[in-house]
């Protein structure tokens, strides 16, 4: 398999870079196996449905170890971390998240072979959660 433009495949989000480096130890983020399903536009940031799926056989030899969900603008950028193992059978997680403003989400999947797959999505939230001081 040839990987084209691996280094540029997933956007580099400057504010998240220290976190990304901590997760990957400097290894590149590869694109293609992570699908991030989240509405582009939400009226309300308090509860935005999000589905993460990673193409993986989830076998003993090839599975997803950890899934990191990072946010560009939330006051705490780490939304969640999920630990999976081959027993899961399918690498798919659905949850609901709080989001703030117009931003990008970055999902990084740490694979069992030590590589990192990632995907990013842009979201616009008209009424934000997180910073709501009411």
């Amino acid at each position, binding site marked *: 398999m040839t990987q084209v433009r691996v280094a540029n495949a997933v956007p580099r989000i400057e504010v998240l870079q220290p976190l990304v480096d901590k997760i990957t130890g400097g290894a590149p983020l590869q694109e293609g196996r992570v699908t991030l399903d989240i509405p582009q536009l939400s009226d309300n940031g*308090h*509860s*935005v449905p999000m589905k993460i799926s990673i193409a993986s056989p989830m076998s003993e030899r090839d599975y997803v170890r950890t899934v990191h*969900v990072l*946010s560009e603008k*939330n*006051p*705490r950028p*780490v*939304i*969640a*971390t*999920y*630990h*999976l*193992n081959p*027993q*899961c*059978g*399918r690498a*798919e*997680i*659905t*949850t*609901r*998240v*709080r*989001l703030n403003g117009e931003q990008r989400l970055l999902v990084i999947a740490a694979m069992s072979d030590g590589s990192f797959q990632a995907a990013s999505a842009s979201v616009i939230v008209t009424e934000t*959660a*997180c*910073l*709501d*001081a*009411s």
Partner: protein
Amino acid sequence: MVARIQVPKEAKRGELIAVRIAIQHPMETGFRFDHSGKPIPKNVVNTLTCSYGGVEIFRAEMGSGISANPYLQFYTRATASGELVFEWVDDAGERGSERVAITVTG
């Protein structure tokens, strides 16, 4: 803490089953204030684990970016009859747990 869990009661051996859990919890962000202007301390369900037949199969570490009444769906392969045990804890140290039995046939 109350939780609603959905797991099929029965499954064929090797079948992929969806596990759904929703925990009743405000998931306080720590960015809100009460009527007197005092900040409400952060209190979220920070860890949720699920074990199947005594082995941990899934663990979620969550932050204030997860919505109130956190909901999660993930998958597991039905390998043997037994129990799925869910355990979670919030920042205040309050713990919750729930058990669901599953019968695996074939």
